[in-house]
């Protein structure tokens, strides 16, 4: 009886010990958590992958030991591409969850009111993957964003500059522009028009296309009038296909320069490869570094497909840079303290770190020791200027049977030099 009882007690103690040790290990992995807010359009088809990548980046960071030894808890709010809903989500994240770091949003029309009415008044840092409006640069120049806003999406300036370089190198003397009628399209059409003019190339017309029109004949006819030698297209695939088909059927030139939004199989198939022989595309590029291809490999391993949607690599970098800055700023840092650390994470003279779990672990170690790192991410050696904008290297590409192939690679230095020369 007694022996039995003792034995019984023994198992209980052993069990308790086991339990305790189990607790101890789980506790050492995550004895605290840090909340990070994200406002992304998860209810929109192209928005969900952006959020998935952000969550994946957070998982990688947690795998590498988290931020300041704490697990990162990403709280995701859906913006529904509605400014009211996005701002409400951001405000709830800041007030109710006490986040000091907001990731998002995607649309500039949502990011802007979040920045002006939530992030800046509350002193919370904001890192957007995908907002392209030049309005953010202007706001930063006026000092109204208080250095709290960053974006990993290269401004439309890079894309426009490379488009102008293509026109120069191909020797086109006149170019017509068709652009999508939203903030991105309006920005890029103005930028490339200015770049072309300063290269001495005539812009015959610049025509805006609204989404989802049954026909673009009127717009295309207008663009044809000046008899341009080449056509610049800043459109999305659906509208782009419709417009280019009308353009070619009306006898327009097949010399085309395409923005990265048209780098799609849908566009190629709808227009027909035989008409795209003289079409040259532009895109901001990943640098020729291991970390960029590492992202592609990571993405393929995780999601089983190429990272081909818009904003995926940008979302990945935005999340990891923001988390590293948060780590560098230390526990319980305020938004502006985190924002101040971004420069130490993207320091061109810092130690190069890759964008994966091992790189994250290495970076946190260096940052904890007071060092600086150069984050080499999916979009390159990201470096923000004083307004929170990034520049990027670029490529030109052409369509092939299988998809697209790179025609030339333009380094970050060449892009910067060209942009400085035309401005």
């Amino acid at each position: 009886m007694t022996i039995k009882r003792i034995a019984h007690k023994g198992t209980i103690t052993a069990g308790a010990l086991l339990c305790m040790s189990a607790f101890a290990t789980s506790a050492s992995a995550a004895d605290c958590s840090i909340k990070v807010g994200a406002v992304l359009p998860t209810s929109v088809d192209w928005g969900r992958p952006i959020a998935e990548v952000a969550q994946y980046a957070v998982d990688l960071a947690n795998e590498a030991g988290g931020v300041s030894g704490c697990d990162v808890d990403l709280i995701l709010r859906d913006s529904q591409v509605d400014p009211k809903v996005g701002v409400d989500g951001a405000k709830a994240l800041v007030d109710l969850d006490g986040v000091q770091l907001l990731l998002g949003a995607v649309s500039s029309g949502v990011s802007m009111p979040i920045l002006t009415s939530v992030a800046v008044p509350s002193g919370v840092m904001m890192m957007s993957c995908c907002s392209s409006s030049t309005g953010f640069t202007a706001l930063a120049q006026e000092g109204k964003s208080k250095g709290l806003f960053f974006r990993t999406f290269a401004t439309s300036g890079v894309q426009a500059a490379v488009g102008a370089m293509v026109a120069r190198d191909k020797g086109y003397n006149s170019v017509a522009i068709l652009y999508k009628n939203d903030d991105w399209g309006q920005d890029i059409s103005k930028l490339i028009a200015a770049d072309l003019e300063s290269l001495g190339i005539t812009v015959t017309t610049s025509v805006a296309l609204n989404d989802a029109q049954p026909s673009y004949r009127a717009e295309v006819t207008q663009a044809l009038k000046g008899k341009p030698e080449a056509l610049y297209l800043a459109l999305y695939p659906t509208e782009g296909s419709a417009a280019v088909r009308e353009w070619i059927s009306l006898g327009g030139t097949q010399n085309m320069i395409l923005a990265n939004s048209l780098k799609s199989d849908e566009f190629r198939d709808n227009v027909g490869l035989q008409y795209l022989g003289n079409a040259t595309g532009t895109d901001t590029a990943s640098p020729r570094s291991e970390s960029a291809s590492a992202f592609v490999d990571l993405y393929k391993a995780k999601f089983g497909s190429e990272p081909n949607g818009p904003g995926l690599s940008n979302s990945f970098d935005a999340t990891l840079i923001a988390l590293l800055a948060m780590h560098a700023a230390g526990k319980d840092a305020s938004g502006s303290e985190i924002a101040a650390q971004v420069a130490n994470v993207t320091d061109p003279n810092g130690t190069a770190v890759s964008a994966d779990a091992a790189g994250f672990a290495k970076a946190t170690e260096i940052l904890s020791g007071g060092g600086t790192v150069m984050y080499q991410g999916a979009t390159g050696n990201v470096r923000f200027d004083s307004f929170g904008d990034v520049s990027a290297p670029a490529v030109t590409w052409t369509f092939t049977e299988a998809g697209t192939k790179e025609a030339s690679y333009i380094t970050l230095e060449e892009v910067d030099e060209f942009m400085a020369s035309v401005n």
Partner: protein
Amino acid sequence: MMGLISYLVFFITIASILAIAVLGLNLQWGNTGLFNGGVVAFFGAGAYGTLLLGGDPQSDHIGGFDLFYPLALLGGAVAAGVLAWVVGRLTLHLRHDYFAIATFGVAVTFENVMRNAEGLSGGAKGLRGFTRPLEAFVNNGFTYNVLFLLVVTSLLVCTYLFLERLIRSPYGRLLRAIREDEIAACSLGKKPDRIRLTAFITGSCIVGLAGGLYATFYAFVSPQDVLPTLTFQLWAMLIVGGAGNNRGAIFGTFLIWGAWSASGWGLSRFAPVEVQLYTGTMQFILIGLVIVGMLLWRPQGLFPERLVVSQSGCKSK
């Protein structure tokens, strides 16, 4: 705790601003029977009007007159009223569904004009660079929001009292008479066209006031703020609250906007991580179910209109 209060202040501010807009819509639909399918155009006219008049000077488009704020806000409401006058003169002879389609078209046109008229509205990237009134004097973001809330709620109360008086006046009875039986009203020597126009303009001014407050609070407005979604949201609030009842309109606004915010918050908080990505979709389904349920089981809304056969002019009850 502080965070919760801060969030509630924010929530009540936005809900009150939307409630003012729904009150304006209630005057048009609930009391006069005008199916305004383009509320958002008048909301947008108020928003753009206020920011153009009260904003900082801008280099790339007109506006930025930096007017004294109450004047700018008033100007926004007047802009909405002027738009309503033009639209009303052209379309008010249309009936019900035709009028709804025409006003819906006006709203889409408005959005497109704002998207394209860069010299006027800043184009697709919107109007920014608005310094919120008195913000320089109030350093603390929370205090500022509380002050703003006080202004907004007092305007909401004023609007409510104004409309309550209006619909209890002979003019209010006239509106209902036109809504119920226009020919009967004509036979009594009333001019329905004229009355409808004044009711349409008054309601639109109120919606424009809400738009002005909205843009002030966000210090920003872009074409994304004036998409048809907002029209449907405002309509849902009125239908759920109860068309024809001002208290219902306010209550419906708080309820629907509350459900919208709370479901987003609740799902992000309690749904498992794998489901998180689908919370947006689930939220749409939830809100849709609430509206469909209301229409099926309580089509008159939570606070139905109280029909009074006649009212005594004397104070005593």
